């Protein structure tokens, strides 16, 4: 008898991709996708159930499908289409509570995987440079998605205590990037000119979408030999990029603004509804955040295919050239080098090409 996997949040790109991927696994018999709105993308051969996880209907879905693995991906920072911040928060927090309540009553559930975020560590100058899974943040996130994630994790911990027979995995993802990423950070990096906070160069970490799908898949199956896939894990690509490096690699010029101006501009942009430039986003772009991934590599036994720089390069390829493409700048410097070689009266060394 195969597994029945129930996935929430399938109307989003990431959920859709995961559903399509997990169906191909040999021991998976059936995949049920749940979301409040019908997805625009196809879900392969998976069943789609239109249900709002904020309602108790999710309990019926869980009972009818007799799912043994629940993958909760509907913990997100941005509304899908036209939604307000309030509805996002409700889906995150109330939705998680309803889903966990349903799981608690279900006799079939054996495994629960929850998507969280490294936002739970906040971003503060007084935090250690590298956060491990056990690091307690000095200042808890005061609002926004980060607070949702903290609360979601709190409920999940409570569930894990009440149902010790269910294997519970919480995956704290760093900023997810990829050719199709639709996260707030991705839309920020898509701006033609990047506003930055003057005097701060935050350290950022990225994880590639492919790696996200892969690690979710690893966690929704039985653990491989010598690994353990229940618990809380930071998921991020190796290495670190500074925001200044990101902007140079993207070829987008930066405009450093004083911190109060950035905060003010952020709230203005938010009011106009142009982009989700939340306070926690500004804090991330001020102080940065780096997490330790030793647990991911040693306990979970997962090695991401993309490093932070690799994930970023893949994202940059999908975005097209900025105003100051790095190739053009490199070419300009090369031309100056060429001129200076000629100017010095020496024969220029001929290169092979």
């Amino acid at each position: 008898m195969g597994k029945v996997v129930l996935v929430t949040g399938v109307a989003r790109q990431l959920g859709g991709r995961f559903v399509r991927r997990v169906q191909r696994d040999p021991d998976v018999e059936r995949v049920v996708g749940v979301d409040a709105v019908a997805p625009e993308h196809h879900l392969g051969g998976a069943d789609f159930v239109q249900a709002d996880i904020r309602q108790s209907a999710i309990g019926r879905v869980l009972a009818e499908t007799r799912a043994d693995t629940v993958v909760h991906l509907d913990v997100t920072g941005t509304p899908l289409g036209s939604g307000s911040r309030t509805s996002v928060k409700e889906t995150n927090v109330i939705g998680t509570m309803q889903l966990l309540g349903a799981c608690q009553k279900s006799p079939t559930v054996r495994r629960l995987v929850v998507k969280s975020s490294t936002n739970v560590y906040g971003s503060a100058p007084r935090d250690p440079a590298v956060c491990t899974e056990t690091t307690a943040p000095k200042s808890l996130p005061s609002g926004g998605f980060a607070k949702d994630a903290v609360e979601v994790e709190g409920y999940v911990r409570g569930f894990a205590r009440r149902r010790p027979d269910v294997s519970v995995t919480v995956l704290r993802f760093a900023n997810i990037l990829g050719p199709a990423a639709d996260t707030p950070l991705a839309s920020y990096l898509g701006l033609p000119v990047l506003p930055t906070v003057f005097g701060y160069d935050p350290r950022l970490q990225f994880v590639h979408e492919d790696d996200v799908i892969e690690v979710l898949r690893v966690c929704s199956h039985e653990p491989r030999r010598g690994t353990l896939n229940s618990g809380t894990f930071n998921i991020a690509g190796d290495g670190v990029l500074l925001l200044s490096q990101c902007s140079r690699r993207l070829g987008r010029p930066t405009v450093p603004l004083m911190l109060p101006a950035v905060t003010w501009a952020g709230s203005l942009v938010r009011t106009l509804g142009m982009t989700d430039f939340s306070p926690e986003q500004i804090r991330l772009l001020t102080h940065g955040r780096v997490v330790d991934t030793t647990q991911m590599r040693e306990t979970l036994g997962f090695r991401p295919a993309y490093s932070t720089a690799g994930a970023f390069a893949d994202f940059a390829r999908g975005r097209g050239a900025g105003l100051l493409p790095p190739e053009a700048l490199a070419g300009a410097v090369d031309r100056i080098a060429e001129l200076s070689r000629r100017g010095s009266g020496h024969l220029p060394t001929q290169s092979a090409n």
Partner: protein
Amino acid sequence: MADAKVIPFDDDRSRGNRRRAKAESAPAGEVQPLPLRGAAAREDDSGDDPVTPPAASGGQAPVRSLAGDDGGGEDGAGDGSLERRVAAGLSFLRRRLTGDYEVDDFGFDAELTDQVLMSLLRPVYEKYFRVEVKGVENIPAEGGALIVANHSGTLPLDGLMMQVAVHDHHPADRHLRLLAADLVFVLPVVNELARKLGHTLACAEDAERLLAQGELVGVMPEGFKGIGKPFGERYKLQRFGRGGFVSTALRQGAPIVPCSIVGAEEIYPMIGNSKTLARLLGFPYFPLTPTFPWLGPLGAVPLPTKWTIQFGEPIPTDGYAPEAAEDPVLMFNLTDQVREQIQHTLYKLLVQRRSVFF
């Protein structure tokens, strides 16, 4: 020091210094002040300490060989090295402009530190404070080690000078990773530069992570109590925090290298502390010196004192049982031992010092 009579070489040396300065400054393209003859001479008469490697203060051999290199091809060779330097500078510029460089998890930018930031600090180190380094061989060539130093001078210039001292004098070219107060990471610009120089927040997690990576970590456990103490209490070590640095070193089995810095106390003689202004600005203290803030920005120029940085014998920490890090008695004993050693060396160096400025 007794060899101050090497006057015949003086001419040769100051020229050598100038050439060396030129050669070093190339990649960053920054302006390095020409050494004053007086300064060079002073540097020389203290520079004959056997411990100081030749790079520090114009030993004879390297100067000769440099002169030989240049003398061989005369102008042609000079052009060649200029060309090389231009090429190196341009490839550096190319990497910076395209973002094609690496930083570590702490934001340490080794290339920027080596090529630019160190070259900016070096004139201050060599020409302004004329730092004399002793006992650099006490720093292990590899593996983690914790350098514990006294802290003074109102502004943490002593940490930066210690970093230059380790980087320029240690044969293995090791980078010192300083642990800085949280205030550093709150201030704009300062935090960015500190991270790029490889500094990180003074907390047990970061220190342990760096030591576990085999880095050389520098800590000044006196913290604000040391740096912001009044001038009258100069060279009196304050309490060494709660000794957290000892348990960190014990947990990692990293040796503790005590370091005594003489000269930093007098750069800004703090004769008063405006508590009101400090509270208003959110600083732990607001220094009043004979010149600051009365002369405005001019008053913020430090006095050109002569510095000595002495690294002491390392104190091994790997012989203890794993639970030793939790033993408060052992921790206090070790903390006191380190503190005593630094204080003792400070007094010894002060007795040897001829004057504050020379």
